[in-house]
């Protein structure tokens, strides 16, 4: 009996390792190996045509001297202004939607539509809407408010606000759905108790709704920051070559240009590592700080 059992267990173990093998092999082949290789490349001069030649710390030194790198970092961080604005808007939307009103499900679908739309198509349509002379937005501003709209994507001062606007339009629907799920999980007894104590709407919002949703705030914030660090596609379409005076170039766009337009693989790898370490540190800080403000049951 015992030998039978261990025979079964041995076969089970073999199956188990077979079942978990693919992601592990995938990680070794497409995660770990490239990462190690990437460290090596970042210390080489390599255009992929001739053999790589050792560069020591040259790539890193050059990188830290490049004004465009700092610009792209600044742009990437600037675009994160959209995250808190988006959180506030989607929370407000979710609160408005958390009522039994007619047509609410149709509206929810419409708010969600930009989230699922291909970002390239969406960027193309905004490029047309933001056209200085014939775009829908500037025409609207002129006709309704008599305002002369800016050259949204052509003026270095307006490129980033434009990108934030598009990001808000494309993102609030997704966060709204998350907040809506969060709102529906708050027990109504909290609000009833607060009402008995005579709390007004503002008090209920700041003392019950906002604190009880902190896990969602945290999730949205962390994902938003990681997403912002990786933003590329909309930049590729809306800020060609980084936009006027590189006012729209993000860090991933910077890496892309150096790797796949100038074929400077070593230099681009050094920049990629800089970004990787940056994301790691920022995410770590967010998790460390989360203990102070994220409410857990």
């Amino acid at each position, binding site marked *: 009996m015992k030998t039978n059992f261990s025979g079964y267990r041995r*076969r*089970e173990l073999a*199956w*188990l*390792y077979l079942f*978990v093998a*693919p*992601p*592990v092999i*995938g*990680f070794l082949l*497409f*995660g770990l*190996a*490239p*990462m190690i290789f*990437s460290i090596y490349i970042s210390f080489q001069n390599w255009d992929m045509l001739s053999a790589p030649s050792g560069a020591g710390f040259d790539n890193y030194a050059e990188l830290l001297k490049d004004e465009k790198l700092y610009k792209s970092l600044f742009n990437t961080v600037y675009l994160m202004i959209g995250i808190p604005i988006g959180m506030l808007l989607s929370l407000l*939307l979710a609160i*408005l939607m958390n*009522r039994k009103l*007619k047509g*609410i499900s149709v*509206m929810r*679908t419409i*708010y969600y*539509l930009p989230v*699922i*739309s*291909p*970002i*390239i*198509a*969406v960027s*193309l*349509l905004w490029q*047309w809407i933001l*056209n200085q002379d*014939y775009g*829908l937005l500037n*025409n609207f501003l002129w006709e309704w408010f008599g305002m002369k709209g800016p050259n949204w994507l052509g003026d270095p001062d307006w490129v980033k606000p434009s990108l934030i606007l598009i990001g808000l*339009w494309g993102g609030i*629907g997704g966060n709204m*759905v*998350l907040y809506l*799920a969060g709102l529906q999980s708050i027990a109504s007894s909290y609000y009833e108790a607060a009402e008995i104590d005579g709390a007004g709407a503002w008090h209920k919002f700041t003392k019950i709704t906002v604190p009880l949703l902190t*896990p969602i705030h945290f999730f949205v914030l962390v994902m938003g920051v*990681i997403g912002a660090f*990786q933003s590329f*596609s909309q930049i*590729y379409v809306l800020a060609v070559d980084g936009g006027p005076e590189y006012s729209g170039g993000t860090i*991933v766009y910077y*890496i892309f240009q150096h*790797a*796949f337009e100038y074929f400077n*693989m070593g230099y681009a*790898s050094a920049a*990629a*590592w800089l*970004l*990787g370490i940056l994301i790691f540190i920022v995410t770590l800080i967010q998790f460390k700080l989360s203990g102070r403000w994220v409410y857990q049951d």
Partner: protein
Amino acid sequence: MKHKKIADVWSFLLLLAGTLFMIAPFLWTLSTSLKDKRNVFEIPPKWIPEPSTFRNYTDVWEQSPLLNGFANSFIIVVTVLTIGLFVSAMSSYAFSKFEFPLKSVLFMGLLGTMMIPYSVVMIPQYIGFSWLNWVDTLLPLIVPGLFGNIVVVFFLRQYLSGALPNDLIEAAKIDGASFPRIFWSICLPVLKPALAAQAALGFMGIWNDFLGPLIYLHTPEKQTIQVLIASMQALYIGQSDYPMIMAAAVIAMIPVILVFFFCQRYFIESLAISGIKG
């Protein structure tokens, strides 16, 4: 009660205004795509195109291999989703229901890979795939996806630990069912709703992916729909041919919007299952 009614009306009006802001860009795109090139620059802009024409659609379709683009995107999505999801389901089953040596080390290691940004592995992967002569083929976009996705594994594992009772597995073992047999006929049926939700999300993610396809695919006939659409910009914006570009944008959006409308339930479910509480 009256107070509540007024609040309801205000909520409705605010939401309606927001809805208009959300949908206007789509309607404007559709309207522009049906306009004649000469009528695009009318001021004030007209919402109803007059005269309206389908010319832009037929022209875009003729001048660019969009059918190939759809086919390429479709091939990537279908292979990665069917094989990738199946493989992810296999390892989520092993990770959630069994104990084995090195289990937690392997699982934590895999979770760590979620921290690696694509931009760090993008360059070495490109070099590796160009050694294999895979540049300008769909393989670099398909093969890594066939090994499963750790985010999906994590999600399915959470789902299984709640949805599949251990007793059921034990009972099947006693009945003499083999390990793969139990996975196939007990685990997979339980996983079905979670797999559908992940398929819906995965479809959107892969279909809308841009950076990877942009790096690897150079010949127009081999490009995915997103890369093709992006290249229209360089082609037509110089000539200010906005109706053509908008027609292309509409064509690129239609499949996603269709999938979304038919699978809305799964999107909502996927959010409900993942539940942020994780």
